[in-house]
C-alpha cells in the first residue's frame, strides 16, 4: 500500500524531537493549524449533514454519548483493578481515554481519503459529542458532584474550549450553506487540508518526542495501559459503529474515536478540577504513547482488521 506522507511528517518530527533539534513551531502556528483542522473537519461534516437525514442521525449522537461514558468507566475500572494508581490519577486518565483526539481523527480521515474508502463524514459531530461526557465522568469519580473550583470553570473549559466551539461552528456553517456554499472556502479548508495536517503532525511528533523522556519515569504499567487500552477502545468503537449500521469507513472512524485519547480538552479540565492528579501521567500516556501508536500503527491496523471482519466490508 502507498505510504501516506502525512505520517512521515510525524516520524520526521518525532525523530527530530528525539535528537533535540531546535525546531518547535511557535505556539501561534500550532494554534493556527489546530483552528484550520477543526474548522475543516467541521465544515466537511456539516456539508454531509446537510445531505443526510438529520432525524436518523440525532439518535446516534445519543448512542455515541453512551460510548464516551462506557469508555471512561472501562478505563477507570481497569486502572483501579490494577491497584497501580490512586483514585484521582485513575479518574484523570479515564477522562482522557473516554474523550477523543481530533488529531488522530484527522489522520484516519486522511487515511480513508488516501485508500479511497467512503465514510460518514458527519462523524465529525461524534467527535464533538465525545469531547464532553468522559471529562465530566472523571471529575465526578473523584469529587462526586463538587469539583475543586466549582463547576462553572469546568463546564466553561469543556463546552467552550476551542475543540467543541470550532468543530460545532464548522458543522453548523457547513450544514447551513451546503456543498455549493463552501466552494469558495475549499482552497484553504479542503484542498490544503493534508498540507496543514502534515505540518500539524510534524509539530505533534516534536511534542510527543519531548514527552517521551517521561515514559521511563512513569514505569511500564503506564506504557502497557497506553498501548493496550487503544486496542480495547477500538473494539468498543467498532461495535458501536456496527450497532449504528455504519459503513466500513465509518467503522474505522468510530474505532479511532474509541482508541484515541484527548490531549487538549481533558488535560486543561482535569488540571483545574482534580489538581491532585499528576498531569504528567495522563499527558504522557495520551500524548507520548497512545497518539504515536494510533498514528503509526493503530489506524492501519484497525483498518486491516475491520476489512477482514466488519460486516459488509466484503472481507
Amino acid at each position, binding site marked *: 500500500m502507498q505510504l501516506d506522507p502525512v505520517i512521515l511528517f510525524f516520524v520526521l518530527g518525532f525523530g527530530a524531537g528525539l535528537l533535540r533539534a531546535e525546531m*518547535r513551531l511557535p505556539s501561534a502556528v500550532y494554534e493556527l493549524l489546530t483552528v484550520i483542522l477543526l474548522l475543516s473537519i467541521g465544515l466537511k461534516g456539516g456539508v454531509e449533514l446537510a445531505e443526510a437525514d438529520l432525524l436518523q442521525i440525532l439518535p446516534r449522537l445519543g448512542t455515541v454519548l453512551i460510548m464516551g461514558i462506557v469508555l471512561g468507566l472501562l478505563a477507570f475500572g481497569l486502572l483501579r483493578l490494577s491497584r497501580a494508581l490512586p483514585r484521582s490519577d485513575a479518574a484523570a486518565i479515564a477522562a482522557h481515554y473516554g474523550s477523543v483526539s481530533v488529531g488522530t481523527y484527522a489522520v484516519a480521515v486522511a487515511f480513508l481519503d488516501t485508500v479511497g474508502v467512503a465514510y460518514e463524514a458527519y462523524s465529525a459531530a461524534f467527535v464533538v459529542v465525545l469531547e464532553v461526557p468522559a471529562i465530566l465522568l472523571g471529575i465526578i469519580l473523584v469529587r462526586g458532584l463538587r469539583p475543586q*473550583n466549582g463547576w462553572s470553570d469546568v463546564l466553561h473549559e469543556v463546552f467552550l474550549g476551542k475543540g467543541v466551539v470550532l468543530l460545532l461552528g464548522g458543522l453548523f456553517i457547513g450544514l447551513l450553506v451546503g456543498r455549493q456554499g463552501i466552494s469558495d472556502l475549499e482552497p484553504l479548508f479542503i484542498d490544503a487540508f493534508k498540507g496543514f495536517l502534515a505540518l500539524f503532525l510534524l509539530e505533534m511528533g516534536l511534542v510527543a518526542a519531548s*514527552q517521551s523522556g517521561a515514559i521511563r519515569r512513569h514505569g511500564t504499567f503506564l506504557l502497557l495501559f497506553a498501548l493496550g487500552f487503544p486496542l480495547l477502545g477500538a473494539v468498543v468503537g467498532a461495535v458501536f459503529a456496527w450497532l449504528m449500521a455504519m459503513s466500513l469507513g465509518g467503522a474505522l472512524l468510530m474505532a479511532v474515536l474509541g482508541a484515541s485519547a484527548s490531549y487538549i480538552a481533558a488535560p486543561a479540565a482535569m488540571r483545574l478540577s482534580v*489538581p491532585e492528579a499528576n498531569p504528567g501521567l495522563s499527558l504522557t500516556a495520551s500524548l507520548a504513547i497512545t497518539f504515536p501508536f494510533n498514528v503509526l500503527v493503530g489506524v492501519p491496523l484497525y483498518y486491516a482488521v475491520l476489512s477482514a471482519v466488519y460486516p459488509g466490508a466484503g472481507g
Partner: protein
Amino acid sequence: MNRKLLTVITEQALERQLIRCVMEAGARGYTITEARGQGQRGLRSADFETGCNIRLEVICEETVARQISTRLHRDYFQDFAMVLYLEDVEVLRPEKFDASGHQ
C-alpha cells in the same frame, strides 16, 4: 511612598483563579507577563504540554500582599507549581495602589 510588590510565578491554567484572588483581596490592579522556567515540579515551557507559566505582579499594601499570599498558599501550593516573593518598592502615587484608595 512605600508599597509591597508581590510576584507570583505559577501555571497558566490558574490565571483566572489568581486574578480573582488578587482582586478580592483588595488589590487595585495587576500585571502579567508570560514566563517559563523550572522548579520542584520540573520544566515548564510551551515545549511541554504541561504548559507555560505566568508571572503576576501586584503592587499593594503589605496587608493585602499578606492576605493574597496566605490564600494562595492555602489553595494552590500543594497541587500546583507556584513561587511567590515580596519586595519593597517606592511608588509615586501610593493611593493608586491602596485597597481604600480613591481614584
